[in-house]
C-alpha cells in the first residue's frame, strides 16, 4: 500500500471510531431513552476543547492563539478530563431541560443550547480562540513513541480501537441491564414508568450524562488526532448526521448503530471525495446534505427500525416439567 493510501485509510478508521463512539453515546440518550438531544455535538465539542487545552501549553507562550488554561498534561489525562467535562456540562444542561419539558420543547431548547454555545465559543475569543479555533494540538505520546508518521497513524488507529472497545463494553453493560430496560420503558411511556415508581427525571439525567461523557471522549479522540478544532465543525447539522446514522443503523441497537456510523458519516460522506468536481465549490457539499436528509426520510418511512433493529430480549425458559 502506498503511503498516501495508508494515510487515508488510517485516517478514515480513526474517523469511523470517533463516529461510532459518538453514535453510541447519542443512542444511549436518543435510541434507548428517547431524549431528542439536538445539541449533542456541543458536548463532543466541549470534550474536544477540553482535551486540546489540557494538551497545549500555557496560552501566554503562544503568539497566534488565545485560550484559557493550557496545562501540558500527558496522555491519557486530557481524554479522561474531556469525558468528565462532557458529563458535567450534560449535568448542567440536563438539569435545566429534562425536568418538565415536552419532547418538542426539549428539542427546541437543545437547538438553542447549541446556538448559545457556538455564539459564546465564537465571540469570547480569549476562551477557545474564537472562530479561528484551536490548532497545533500536540499528538499524544508522539514524543515518547518516536514513530514515523505512517506508523504513528496506525498507532492512533489502535488507540482509537481500544477506546472504542471500552466505550462499547460500557454501553453494552448499561443497555443489557435492568437499567437499560428501565430507560427503554421511559422512552416508550414515561407516565407508566413513573407510575411504577421510576424517578423518570433522574434516569433521564443519568442517560444524558453518560451520553455526554461519551460525546466528550469522542471529541477528545478526534481533536488529538487532527490537531485542530473550530466552531465551524460543530453546527446542529452535524448532530443530524449522527441522528441519521442511528436511524439508518437501528435505533436502540449498539451493533446497528455502529453499522449506521459506518454507512452514513463514513461511507456516504466520504464517498463523495472520489467524485469529480462539478459546479461551483460547495455544490457537492450542499447536495450531500440534501442526500443525508433524503436518506433519513427514506429510512423513517421504509425501515424505521433500521438495518439491524433493536433486539428482542428473550429470557431463558425453565426446563419443561
Amino acid at each position: 500500500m502506498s503511503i498516501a493510501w495508508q494515510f487515508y485509510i488510517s485516517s478514515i478508521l480513526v474517523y469511523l471510531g470517533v463516529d461510532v463512539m459518538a453514535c453510541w453515546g447519542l443512542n444511549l440518550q436518543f435510541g434507548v431513552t428517547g431524549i431528542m438531544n439536538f445539541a449533542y455535538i456541543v458536548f463532543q465539542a466541549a470534550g474536544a476543547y477540553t482535551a486540546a487545552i489540557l494538551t497545549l501549553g500555557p496560552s501566554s507562550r503562544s503568539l497566534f492563539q488565545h485560550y484559557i488554561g493550557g496545562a501540558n498534561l500527558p496522555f491519557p489525562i486530557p481524554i479522561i478530563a474531556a469525558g468528565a467535562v462532557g458529563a458535567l456540562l450534560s449535568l448542567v444542561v440536563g438539569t435545566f431541560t429534562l425536568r418538565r419539558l415536552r419532547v418538542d420543547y426539549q428539542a427546541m431548547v437543545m437547538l438553542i443550547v447549541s446556538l448559545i454555545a457556538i455564539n459564546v465559543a465564537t465571540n469570547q475569543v480569549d476562551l477557545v480562540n474564537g472562530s479561528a479555533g484551536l490548532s497545533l494540538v500536540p499528538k499524544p505520546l508522539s514524543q515518547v513513541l518516536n514513530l514515523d508518521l505512517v506508523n504513528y497513524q496506525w498507532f492512533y488507529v489502535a488507540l482509537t480501537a481500544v477506546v472504542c472497545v471500552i466505550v462499547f463494553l460500557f454501553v453494552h453493560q448499561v443497555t443489557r441491564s435492568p437499567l437499560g430496560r428501565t430507560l427503554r420503558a421511559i422512552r416508550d411511556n414515561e407516565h407508566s414508568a413513573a407510575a411504577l415508581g421510576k424517578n423518570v427525571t433522574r434516569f433521564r439525567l443519568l442517560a444524558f450524562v453518560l451520553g455526554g461523557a461519551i460525546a466528550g471522549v469522542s471529541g477528545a479522540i478526534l481533536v488529538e488526532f487532527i490537531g485542530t478544532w473550530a466552531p465551524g465543525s460543530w453546527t446542529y447539522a452535524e448532530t443530524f448526521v449522527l441522528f441519521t446514522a442511528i436511524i439508518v443503523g437501528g435505533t436502540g441497537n449498539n451493533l446497528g448503530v455502529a453499522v449506521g456510523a459506518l454507512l452514513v458519516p463514513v461511507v456516504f460522506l466520504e464517498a463523495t471525495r472520489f467524485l469529480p468536481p462539478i459546479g461551483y465549490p460547495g455544490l457537492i457539499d450542499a447536495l450531500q446534505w440534501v442526500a443525508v436528509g433524503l436518506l433519513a426520510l427514506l429510512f423513517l418511512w421504509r425501515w424505521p427500525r433500521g438495518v439491524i433493529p433493536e433486539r428482542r430480549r428473550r429470557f431463558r425458559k425453565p426446563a419443561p416439567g
Partner: protein
Amino acid sequence: MSVLVASIGFGLISTSILAIAAVGFTLQFGVTNVFNLAYGSVMTGAAYAAYVANQFGVDIWVSMVLGGLFGAALSLLINRGLYTPFARHGLGLAGIIQVTLALGLILENGLQAIFGPSYHSYQMSQGPSFHFGSMVFTAVQVGIMGIALASMIGVHALLAHTKLGKAMRATAADAPLARSCGIRTEFVTDIAWLLSGLLCGIAGVILVMDLQSFTSTTGSNFLVPVLAAAVLGGIGQPYGAMLGALIIGMVSEVAAAVTLPQYKEVIAFVILLVVLLFRPRGILAEVASLKEVVA
C-alpha cells in the same frame, strides 16, 4: 440615551418581523401539533421566490405578496405530501420532529444548490428616511411595521370574529371533540398550514428587505429566535407569540445597544430558558395545560 432610543427603533423592526413569523409558526402548531423545524427554510424559499419575481422586474412589494403565496402553497404541500403521510404511517411526535428537521436541511441545501452560496439582494430602494426623535426609519422599515400591524389585526379579526377562526381555536383545544361537533378538522388543518405559510413567506421576504442581502441559511438562522418568541409566549397561543416577539425583539436589540452587541441573541435566549424554568409552557399557557390533561 439616544443610543437607547435608537435601539428601541431597531427593536420595533425586529419585533415586527418576529411577530409575523412567530404567529405563523404558532397558529400551525396550535392546530396540528407539528413542531415544524423546516419553518426557517420555508422562509428562505419564499425569499428566493420573491427574488426571482423581483429579477423579472416585479415591484418588491408585489414580490413580497408572491413570496407569501409561495410560502402558503409550499407549506400546504409539505403537510399534505410529507407530514400527514408520515403521521398516518404511525410515526410519533419525536419522529415527526426529525422529519421536519430533515426537510429543513433538504430545502436549505437544495436552495443553495440552485442559487449558489453567494449573497443575493432585491432591487429596491429603501426610500426616504423618517425621524422620530433619535429613531430613524427608512420607508421600507415603516412599511414592514405597517404590514406587521396589519397582519396582527388580521389574525386577531380572523380568530375572534369569524366562524373559521372559532373552528381553528376549537380544533387547537381538542381536535377529536371538534370533529365530533361537526367541524371539518381536515379543512381547518389545511387552512392553518396555508395561513401559517403565508405569514412565514411574508416574514421571509421582509426579513431580507430589512437585512438587504440573504443566502440559503438566512431563514434557518432566524428560526431559533422565532421559536423562542413562539415558546416564550406559550406555544399555540397567537397572542402569546406576539408578546414573545415583542420581548425577544426588544430585549435583544436594547441589550445589544447597552451591553455586548455580539451577544444580542444569546441574551434573548437566556431569558427564554429562564422563563421555561418557571413556566415550562410559556407565559400564556393555560389553554395548553388544559389540552394536555384532556388528551
